[in-house]
C-alpha cells in the first residue's frame, strides 16, 4: 500500500450466506485510490459492485482481506465517509436545506455553529445550482435536482471519502450529463477521494482517473484503465478519438466479463 492512498483494498473476498450455501461475490479484489483520486468501478450486473460500496463504508465486513481507509483498517462505519445512491433518499418531511444538514446531526465534533453549518450547506447548494431551493420540499424538485441535493448531503460533513453507487442511473441522458459536469466540479473543488460504481462507461471515463472492470461473480479486477483526461473536462472530450478507443476497449472488457466475447462476429448480437 502506498503512502498517499486514501482507500485501499487488499485481497478482499466476500460471500453472502444463502439457503444453498455461501454465494461468493468478491474474490480477492485489490486496488488503491490516491488522495483526491477518482476511481470508477464497472462490471456486469450482479457482479458485486454494490457489495464493494458496503465494504468500504464499513456496513459489511469482508470474509477475507482488508479494507483500509486513511491508513486504518475499516472495522465499523466511519463519519469520514459520504454516500450517494441511485435513489436520492431525501427525507420528504424536511426542507432541502435540512436534508443537506442531516449528516451534521449524526457526526459530532465538526465544531460548526448552526449558522456556519447552514452557510456551508447553502454554499454547496449554490455550487450544484440549487441556490434558492433551500426551503423547498424534496417533492417539489425534479429527479436531477433531488440527486444534486443528495450529493450536497454526502459532502456536507467534508468526508475524506465519497462513495457513489450509480447516483445518476435513474436520470435521463441530458440531466445525467449535466450532473457529470457538476460532479466533476465538486470532486475538483472539494478534493474528496471518490469511488464510483456505475453501469455507464461514458460516465466512468468522464469522471474518473482510473476505471476498473470487474469480472462476473465471484468478481476479480479484470482490467484497469487510466483515463487520459486532465483536470479540465468537457462532455465533448468523450468524442475524441483516443477516448472513443478507450470506451470501445472498456466495452470489450465488459463483454469478456459477461462471457460473451467469443469472436468479432458476435459483437453486434451482444449489443
Amino acid at each position, binding site marked *: 500500500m502506498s503512502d498517499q492512498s486514501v482507500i485501499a483494498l487488499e485481497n478482499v473476498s466476500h460471500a453472502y450466506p444463502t439457503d444453498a450455501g455461501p454465494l461468493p461475490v468478491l474474490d480477492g479484489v485489490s486496488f488503491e485510490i490516491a488522495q483526491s483520486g477518482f476511481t470508477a468501478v464497472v462490471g456486469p450486473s450482479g457482479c458485486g459492485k454494490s457489495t464493494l460500496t458496503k465494504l468500504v463504508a464499513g*456496513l459489511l465486513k469482508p470474509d477475507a482481506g482488508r479494507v483500509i481507509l486513511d491508513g486504518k483498517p475499516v472495522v465499523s462505519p466511519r*463519519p469520514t*465517509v459520504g454516500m450517494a*445512491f441511485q435513489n436520492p433518499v431525501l*427525507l*420528504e*418531511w424536511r426542507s432541502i436545506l435540512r436534508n443537506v444538514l442531516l449528516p451534521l446531526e*449524526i457526526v459530532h465534533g465538526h465544531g460548526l455553529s448552526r449558522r456556519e453549518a447552514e452557510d456551508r450547506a447553502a454554499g454547496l447548494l449554490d455550487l450544484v445550482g440549487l441556490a434558492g431551493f433551500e426551503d423547498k*420540499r424534496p417533492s417539489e424538485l425534479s429527479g436531477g435536482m433531488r440527486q444534486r441535493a443528495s450529493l450536497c448531503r454526502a459532502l456536507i460533513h467534508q468526508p475524506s471519502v465519497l462513495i457513489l453507487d450509480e447516483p445518476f442511473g435513474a436520470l435521463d441522458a441530458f440531466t445525467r450529463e449535466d450532473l457529470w459536469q457538476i460532479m466533476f466540479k465538486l470532486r475538483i473543488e472539494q478534493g474528496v477521494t471518490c469511488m464510483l460504481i456505475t453501469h455507464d462507461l461514458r460516465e466512468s471515463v468522464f469522471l474518473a482517473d482510473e476505471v476498473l472492470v470487474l469480472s462476473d461473480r465471484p468478481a476479480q479486477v479484470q482490467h484497469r484503465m487510466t483515463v487520459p483526461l486532465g483536470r479540465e473536462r468537457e462532455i465533448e472530450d468523450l468524442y475524441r478519438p483516443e477516448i472513443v478507443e478507450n470506451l470501445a476497449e472498456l466495452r470489450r472488457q465488459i463483454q469478456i466479463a459477461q462471457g460473451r466475447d467469443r469472436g468479432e462476429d458476435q459483437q453486434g448480437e451482444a449489443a
Partner: protein
Amino acid sequence: MNPQQSRLIRQILVPLVSIVVFLILWELLVWWRDWPNYKMASPSDLTGAFSKYWKLFLLYGWQTLWRTVLGLVISILVGTLLGMIMGFSKVARDALYPLLVGFNAVPKATVVPVIALLFIGADNTNTVLMAFMISFFPIAVSVSVGLNTLETEYRDILRALGASRFTVFWKIALPKTLPEFFGALKVAVTLAFIGTNLVEIIEPHGMGLGHLFDSGKINADYPLMFAVLLALAFLGILLFYAVVVLEKIFAGWAERPET
C-alpha cells in the same frame, strides 16, 4: 377572498351540506313511508329528546368521550410499541402475528363479561380497557409494516456515518411511518367508540351514552335511542377530525398538492 380562504370555506361547507342533505333525506324517508317513531324516528323527533335531556347528553357524552380517548392513548402507546418490536425483529413478527390476529378475531362483545368479572366494579377500567383492546391492532400493524418496508438506503445513509439503531429509528423510520400511522389511527378512533359503548350497553353501570341508550330502550323512548346514536356519530366525527388536524401538523408533508 384569497384561494386559501375559499379552500378553507369549501373544506368546512362541503361536509356540513352533505350532513344536512342526509338529515333531509332521512326525514323524507320516514315521512314518505309514514313510519311511526317507535319503528324509525325522524330527525325532527330527535329535537325533543335533545332539548329534554341535554344535561344528560353533556354528562354522559363527556364520560364516553374521555374513556374512549384514554383507551385510544393506551392503544397508541401499546400499538406503537408492538409495531416497533414486530417491525425490527422478524422472530418477534413471526411470534406475535398469529397471537394478535387471533386476539383481534375474537368478537369483543364476548370479552365484555370476562373483563367485567376480572375487574368487578372497576367500570372505568373495564371501559377504557375495551376501547384499547378493540383499537390497537391497526396501529400495531401499520407501524410494523411501515418500519419493515423502510428501504435499506434510508438506513444506510445514516448507518454509514456511525449512527445507532435508535438514531435511525428516531430520525428516519418514525417520521417516515407517520402517514401510515395516522391512516390506522383514523380507523382506531371509530373502533375505540365501539369498544366503549359495548361495555356501556352490555354491562350497564350507569355511565356514558351507552347507558342513556339503554334507558331509552327500557322506557321505550325511541326518539331518545336515535338521539343517542346521533350523539355518538357526532362524537366520532369530532374525534376523527381531531386526528385529521394532528395528521396535518405532523404528517402534512405526505400530502401532495392538488392538481
